[in-house]
């Protein structure tokens, strides 16, 4: 019996690597610490009632962002390990198979489990506040989306200690991701982690389209809506059309691995190139999905900190919608070298270059907004100003890559690596950080220390250039991506060392950010945002107290123009004696919290885990649990309640008292 358990455990748990043993211990200790703290301070009930079962979009948003930060940490450690390995030639720090696992998990985590939840977090916290809504269109679904993402992310991360990580690259190209070459469970963890969180992403896309189209406060016509919700709409349109492709593609790959199908195998009539074709149909829109909201964030910040109306609002809206649709027409530029011939390649090269036009329009709009504005450089604006040159260079190297004949030279080299890190870090990550700093006071009710924030910014920004500029050159020198090591005679050592130093600088920048947040929490009372409008903002979210009460708006606002809050403040300044419009408080209709989403995600996790290990005894009850949760929710009529007028008045009075004292 003991022997039996031993042999099972040696295959089940990842063994043999001291780094992983270290990680095992630290994971265990962290879990114990969390459990102990919760029990010691008797916070279990509070956690369950206030957070885990919450359908409040602001709380869900905060949970998304918290998860994204944890994932950023893990993805960042992966990145630092890779850079440490490449710092010296012939390095033995990581074994080749371990290196493969690390670059795979780095990519998957950063895109799917860091950028996506960070983005959804910002959607959740801000979109309803900006359009004057009290929650999203489907609050229950919203909670379910978060928990499905969480279950998927945990399933994927579990592969680190149980069963072994996937190692076929972040997009798991066959034939290497097929059973024949990859018989372990890593790829199945990959498939199910992404599938389960993908359901959540799709539902979030639907949810926010419905929210933006149907839940705007009276007077917010589409063309009077702030740009962030516009960017969310364009991003969500791309989500609902592209994520089904990902789901179908990974389902086919799973059938290959699980049921012995031959969609992408080398034999039996399969074609691995079809997988590459399909996965990029999702993969390309995906990069626009994550960068469009960043464009929206920059538009809000530029206008706020320049004290000016955004230049070219209409062209901005059209540019984002065009990018959202055009992103579906460029996918083949990821595999020009597949050999589809000149016709195919020139078509996709042209569509790729076309996307640069609306993007260029946006850059000029931001610049013209700043032109002759009264710019105040606070941290959100700093990130925006850092973003513009970075994204321009990233965009230009993208245009270079889009030249199909030249791409045969650049393809899969470090030139490509440098390019996409430049647009994704310079565009997406800088954008989300800018948004996080900008809306932090609205989320938590206190401001962060600007001084530490500036240190973090400069470390990030300088570290970025030090890390990735050498990689362009390395790419041109012939260094290909995913190489585990190189010899002295290649001449790549000095630039690789510089690049590693840059990565270290970004690691330090992350520590600064963590410090900034801890510092903010520690000096919470001193830095309280009592005005609700710390940046002298322009849009509706700044018209309510920070943090927003759980019903957001005591009275649904009546909006008459773009940047309505700014215009309102102007009116009040010109004519302070006009009393504000009489506000009639009515009972507020709100959704009730529900424990079903977290339970259902737990069942999905069970089912996914069962699929990974071919354990039907776990899969079947898991899926049955999912079905039961769906039924239970369908027959639950007790899903909403009204907040009585007295309670609203009390809450408002309490907030006002805090904000005026």
């Amino acid at each position, binding site marked *: 019996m003991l022997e039996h358990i031993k042999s099972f455990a040696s295959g089940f748990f990842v063994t043999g690597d001291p780094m992983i043993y270290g990680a095992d211990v630290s994971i265990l200790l962290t879990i114990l610490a969390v459990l102990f703290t919760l029990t010691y301070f008797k916070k279990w009930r509070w956690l369950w009632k206030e957070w885990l079962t919450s359908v409040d979009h602001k709380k869900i948003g905060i949970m998304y962002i918290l998860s994204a930060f944890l994932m950023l940490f893990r993805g960042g450690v992966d990145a630092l390990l890779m850079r440490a390995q490449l710092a010296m030639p012939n390095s033995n720090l990581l074994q080749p198979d371990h290196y493969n696992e690390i670059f795979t998990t780095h990519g998957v985590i950063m895109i799917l489990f860091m950028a996506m939840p960070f983005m959804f977090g910002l959607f959740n916290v801000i979109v309803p506040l900006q359009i004057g809504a009290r929650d999203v269109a489907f609050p229950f679904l919203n909670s379910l989306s978060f928990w499905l993402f969480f279950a998927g992310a945990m399933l994927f991360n579990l592969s680190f200690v149980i069963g072994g990580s996937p190692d076929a690259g972040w997009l798991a190209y066959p034939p290497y991701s097929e059973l024949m070459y990859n018989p372990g469970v890593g790829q199945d963890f990959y498939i199910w982690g992404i599938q389960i969180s993908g359901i959540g992403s799709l539902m979030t896309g639907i949810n926010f389209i419905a929210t933006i189209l149907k839940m705007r406060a009276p007077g917010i016509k589409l063309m009077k809506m702030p740009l962030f919700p516009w960017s969310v709409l364009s991003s969500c349109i791309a989500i609902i059309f592209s994520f089904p492709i990902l789901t179908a593609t990974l389902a086919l790959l799973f059938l290959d691995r699980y049921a012995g199908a031959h969609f992408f195998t080398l034999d039996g009539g399969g074609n691995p190139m079809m997988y590459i074709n399909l996965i990029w149909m999702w993969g390309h829109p995906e990069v626009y999905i994550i960068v469009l909201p960043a464009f929206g964030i920059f538009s809000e910040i530029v206008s706020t900190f320049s004290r000016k109306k955004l230049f070219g609002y209409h062209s901005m809206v059209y540019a984002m919608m065009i990018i959202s649709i055009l992103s579906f027409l460029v996918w083949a530029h990821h595999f020009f070298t597949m050999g589809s*011939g000149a016709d195919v390649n020139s078509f996709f090269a042209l569509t790729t270059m076309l996307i640069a036009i609306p993007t260029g329009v946006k850059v000029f709009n931001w610049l013209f907004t700043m032109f002759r504005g009264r710019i105040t450089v606070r941290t959100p604006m700093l990130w925006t100003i850092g973003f513009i040159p970075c994204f321009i260079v990233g965009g230009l190297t993208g245009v270079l890559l889009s030249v199909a004949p030249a791409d045969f030279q650049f393809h899969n080299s470090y030139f490509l690596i440098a390019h996409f890190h430049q647009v994704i870090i310079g565009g997406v990550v800088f954008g989300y950080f800018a948004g996080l700093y900008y809306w932090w006071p609205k989320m938590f009710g206190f401001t962060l220390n600007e001084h530490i924030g500036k240190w973090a910014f400069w470390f990030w920004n300088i570290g970025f250039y030090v890390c990735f500029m050498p990689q362009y050159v390395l790419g041109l020198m012939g260094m290909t991506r995913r190489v585990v090591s190189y010899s002295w005679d290649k001449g790549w050592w000095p630039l690789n060392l510089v690049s590693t130093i840059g990565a270290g600088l970004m690691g330090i920048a992350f520590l600064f950010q963590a410090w900034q947040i801890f510092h903010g929490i520690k000096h919470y009372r001193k830095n309280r945002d009592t005005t609700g409008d710390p940046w002298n903002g322009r849009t509706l979210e700044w018209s309510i107290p920070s943090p927003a009460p759980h019903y957001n708006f005591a009275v649904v606002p009546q909006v008459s123009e773009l940047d309505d809050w700014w215009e309102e403040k102007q009116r009040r300044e010109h004519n302070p004696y006009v009393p504000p419009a009489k506000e009639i408080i009515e009972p507020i209709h709100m959704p009730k919290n529900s424990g079903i989403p977290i339970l259902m995600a737990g069942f999905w996790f069970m089912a996914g885990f069962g699929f990974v290990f071919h354990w039907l005894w776990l899969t079947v009850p898991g899926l049955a649990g999912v079905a039961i949760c769906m039924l239970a929710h369908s027959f639950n009529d007790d899903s909403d309640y009204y907040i009585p007028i007295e309670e609203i008045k009390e809450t408002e009075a309490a907030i006002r008292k805090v904000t005026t004292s």
Partner: protein
Amino acid sequence: MAHTDSTHSVEDNHGSLKSYTIGFLCSIVLTIIPIAIILGGWLEGTSKAVALMMFGVLQFIVQLYFFMHLREEKKPRYNLISLVLGLVILVVIVAGSMWIMLYNMVAL
């Protein structure tokens, strides 16, 4: 939210027994014919593929028209807009994939 459903159910009042019956019969016929084509071996090769795809498209239209009530939607016609966009993207995906994969010099 549940409360707003009272206004929704008034709009929801569409479709008649007649239209549902016609829709049901159409979709049944459009399902039986392709099955018969396969089981009876009436057509071969390209003509079979084209015929099957045609019946698939017809089935799609019947479903949208009789069961999804596409033409009864009020303005702004978000359902129609998203359907058209979905179709455009579907065509791009299918036609684009065929173009890329069939003209693939390596695969040939």
